[in-house]
C-alpha cells in the first residue's frame, strides 16, 4: 500500500517545471510576435502619441492588407500610432466584439472599424463612443448614428456597374447567375442588390437563373459552391460574384471545367490570381474598390475628429471597372496591385 502523503513532494517538482516551461513559452511567443511592433512614428521628446485602433473583418484577405497599408501610411504621415487587430476567427461577430472591447480597456484614442455585422457591433461601438472614443466606420455600415463618418465604396453602385458590364458583353440578353457571399454581410448584400436591380431595371432581356446560392466564407467553400452551380446550369452565359473569395472560387471552378473565358465572369475586388485571370481574359471585368484609400481616409478622418475639425458623414471611395484592355493604365494598375511594402517594415 502506498501512503498518499509520500507522493506529495514529487508533483510539486512537476508544477515547478510546468511554471518554467510555460513562462518561457509565453515569453518567447510574445517576444517574437511583438518584434515587428506596431508602427511608432514621431516619438520625439516624450509627447504622447495618439493611438488609433484599426479593426478589419479579417486579416488574411488581400483587401484587408491594402487597408492596413493605407492606414499605416496615413498614421506615419500624421504621427499617430496605428494598432491593427482583427478578430481571431474571421466572420465571427463575437470575436470582433472582443477586439473592440479590449481596445476599450486599453483606452485607445480612436477606433476605425469595418464592422462584421451592422447590428451586433452597435452596442460595443456605442459603449466606446460613450467612453469618449470616437468611431469611424469603413467598408460596411453599422446601424448606429453615433459614428463620426462612414467611409466606403458605394457598393450598390458597384453592383449596378457590374450588371451593366455583364449585360453589355452578352449583348443585352442571355442567362446569368449570381453566387452570393455569406449571410449578413452588409457590403456584399448591397452589391448583390445593386446587381439584381440593375439587371431588372436596365437589362430586361437578361434572365437571372440563380441568385440564392452562397459561396460561404472560405475559398474552399466558394469553389465547391461554384462547381455545383455550374453543374446545375449547363447553359449559363454569365456569372457575377460579389467579392474576392467567391470570384476566385468561381474562377477556379471555371478553369477546372474548361469553361473559363466562354462563360462571362464579372467579379469584385482584386488579388494576384484574379488579375492573372483578367489578363488571360478568363475574367471579363473586375469591380475594383480602393481599400488603400479607405484605410488612409479612415485614419485621417479620425485624426480630424480628434483635432476638432468637421468631417463629412459619408465618403465614397469609388468603384472602378477594370477590363483586360484597361488594366495597364497607371491609375488602374495601382488599384490592381497596391503597394503593400509598408507592411514589411
Amino acid at each position, binding site marked *: 500500500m*502506498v*501512503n498518499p502523503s509520500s507522493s506529495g513532494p514529487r508533483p510539486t517538482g512537476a508544477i515547478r517545471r510546468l511554471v518554467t516551461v510555460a513562462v518561457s513559452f509565453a515569453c518567447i511567443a510574445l517576444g517574437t510576435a511583438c518584434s515587428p511592433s506596431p508602427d511608432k512614428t514621431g516619438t520625439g521628446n516624450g509627447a504622447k502619441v495618439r493611438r488609433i485602433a484599426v479593426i478589419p473583418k479579417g486579416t488574411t484577405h488581400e483587401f484587408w492588407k491594402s487597408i492596413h497599408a493605407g492606414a499605416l501610411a496615413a498614421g506615419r504621415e500624421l504621427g499617430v500610432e496605428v494598432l491593427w487587430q482583427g478578430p481571431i476567427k474571421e466572420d465571427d461577430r463575437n470575436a470582433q466584439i472582443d477586439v473592440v472591447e479590449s481596445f476599450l480597456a486599453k483606452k485607445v484614442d480612436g477606433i476605425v472599424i469595418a464592422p462584421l455585422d451592422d447590428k451586433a457591433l452597435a452596442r460595443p461601438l456605442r459603449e466606446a463612443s460613450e467612453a469618449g472614443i470616437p468611431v469611424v466606420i469603413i467598408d460596411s455600415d453599422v446601424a448606429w448614428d453615433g459614428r463620426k463618418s462612414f467611409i466606403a465604396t458605394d457598393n450598390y453602385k458597384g453592383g449596378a456597374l457590374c450588371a451593366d458590364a455583364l449585360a453589355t458583353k452578352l449583348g443585352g440578353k442571355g442567362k446569368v447567375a449570381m453566387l452570393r457571399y455569406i449571410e449578413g454581410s452588409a457590403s456584399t448584400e448591397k452589391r448583390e442588390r445593386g446587381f439584381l436591380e440593375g439587371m431588372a431595371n436596365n437589362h430586361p432581356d437578361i434572365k437571372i437563373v440563380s441568385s440564392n446560392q452562397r459561396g460561404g466564407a472560405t475559398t474552399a467553400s466558394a469553389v465547391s459552391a461554384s462547381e455545383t452551380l455550374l453543374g446545375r446550369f449547363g447553359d449559363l452565359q454569365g456569372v457575377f460574384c460579389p467579392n474576392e473569395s467567391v470570384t476566385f472560387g468561381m474562377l477556379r471552378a471555371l478553369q477546372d471545367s474548361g469553361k473559363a473565358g466562354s462563360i462571362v465572369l464579372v467579379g469584385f475586388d482584386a488579388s494576384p490570381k484574379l488579375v492573372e485571370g483578367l489578363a488571360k481574359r478568363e475574367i471579363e471585368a473586375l469591380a475594383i474598390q480602393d481599400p488603400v484609400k479607405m484605410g488612409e481616409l479612415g485614419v485621417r478622418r479620425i485624426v480630424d475628429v480628434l483635432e476638432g475639425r468637421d468631417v463629412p458623414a459619408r465618403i465614397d471611395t469609388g468603384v472602378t471597372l477594370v477590363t483586360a484592355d484597361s488594366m495597364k493604365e497607371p491609375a488602374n494598375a495601382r488599384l490592381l496591385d497596391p503597394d503593400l511594402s509598408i507592411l514589411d517594415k
Partner: protein
Amino acid sequence: MHVITLRAQGIAKHFGVVRALDGVDFDVHGGEVHALLGENGAGKSTLLSVLAGVHAPTAGSIEFDGEPYAPRNPLDAVRAGIVTIHQELCSSPDLTVEQNIVLGREPRVRRRGLRALVDRARVRELAEQALERIGASVAPTARVADLGPSERQLVEIARALAFDVRVLVLDEPTSSLTAVEVERLFAVLESLRADGRAIVYVSHFLEEVMLIADRFTVLRDGRTVGSGKVAGAEIGGIVELMAGRRLDEVYPPKRERARSDGSSIVFDVREVVGKSLPREARFSLGRGEILGVFGLVGAGRTELLRALIGLDPARRRIISVSSDRDVLLGGGPREALAHGIGFASEDRKDEGLALDLTIAQNITLSGLERHARFGFVRSSSVREASERCADAFDVRRASTEQAVGRLSGGNQQKVALARLLHEEANVWLLDEPTRGIDVASKSEIYRRIHSLANDGASFVVVSSYVPELLGICDRIAVMHRGVLAQSRAACDWTEHELIEVAARGVDRRAVQDRASEVDQ
C-alpha cells in the same frame, strides 16, 4: 552443451521513498524452470519489470550469458532473448494469430521497392513453425479476439519462440486456465526446458510449482528470503517463508452443517437460459449455503452468473428469491440488487472496480441512494458505512479516501467483496473471488465467506481452482458446455473426479430427470 545463465545480484529499485526491491539475488539456468514466489507486494512484478527492461534498477547488476545485461527498454530485453508473458495477456486482439506472432519483426518482401510490404508466405511459415513446436492446434488465420485465454497464452509462447527466446518469463500463467489446459501448458514448458531454454515461473499456486519447477526463490518485502531445490521442499515451509510468519491452514475449518431442507431455500433458480450460454441450469440455494461451480474455461460458468444478475440478456429466467413467490427478473443488476442478489466480477480491474475512484466510492457505488438526502450525498454517512464494510473485510488502507487502484490485488478484491456487504446482499454470486491474489488475502477471504455464511448469507462460488472449491464449499456442481449438472456435497468429490466430469460431462441424466419434473 553451452548452458546460459541469467544472474541478478543485489538488485534494488526505489520509487521515491518506496523500496520496491531492496537486495534481490536471483539466477536461472538454461534447461530449468525456476519458480519465483512471494505474496503480492513482495516485489515479484518489479523484478520482472527490471528483467524485461521496463525499469532500470537503482542498484545491483545483472549478468546474462557472461555479459553485463542492462536493457534500456523492453525491446532491448526481447532482442537479448528475454521474453515476458504477462498475466494480462497483451496480444493485439484485432490481429490474427500469425500477425501477433511476428508482430514487431514482420518479414519483408525481399524484392526491391516492395520492402515496405509484409512477406505473407514467410509469416505463415514462421507462425506455423512456432505453433507446431509447442503442439498448439490454433489456426494461424484466427483472430486473437476469438480465442480463449489458454489459446491466447499459447500464441504468446509461440510468439516468444519466434523471437528465439532464451529466457521465458511467465507471470501467473495458469490463473485463468482449467486443469486440462494447465497440463497442456506444462507439457509445452517441459519441451522448452528439454530444449535448453530457461524458464522463470511466477505463480501463487504452490501445488503447480511443486509439479513443474526445479528450483524456487522466495521474495518478501523486496528481498530474497530463501531459495532451494523444489525436490525435498514442503509447501508448508514455502508458505511460511512467503508469509514470514506461521500460517494456520489456508482454508478455514470444515463447516458443520446439514444439507438444507426445502423450507429454508432462499434462492431457487428454476430456469435460466442465456443468449448462447448457459444452455440449461437450475439449482437451489439454502440459507447459509455455499455452492461451488467448477468447469472448463468456456463452459459457461461466468455467463451463468452474469445471466442471473442480469448483466447479460437472458432468454428465459425464472428465479424465486424466497420460498413463497416466483420473481421474473427482467431488468438489469439494479433489480437483482433490490432483491438482495450481489455479484462480484472475475475481472476486478476491468469490471469489478473503478480503479480511479476511492475505496469509499467503490464500496458504496451500488447503494449511494441510501446515503443521500434530496439527491445529495451525506459524506459522513458514506464514510461511516464504507469504514464499517472495509473493516469487515480487513482492507489494509491509509484511508477510505484512497484510490482503489493503489491497493494491492488482495485488498482490491476485498473492496470488491465489501461492496456486496454494503449492498446487504443475502445471495452472493462470486466469480473467481481469489484470482491472482496472495495466500494471506485468500485465507482471509475464505474465513470471511464462512462467517457470513454462518450468519445466513448464501454463496455461489465459481472457481477454476479445485482445492479452493473443495476447501470452502458445502456443495459443488460441474458445468459442461453450458449445462449445469446437479450438485453433490463437497466431501463426495475428489479433485480428480471434478476435472474428469468437467472435461467429459457426465451426470447428464440427473439433470434431465429434474427438467421433466419442472416442465409442465
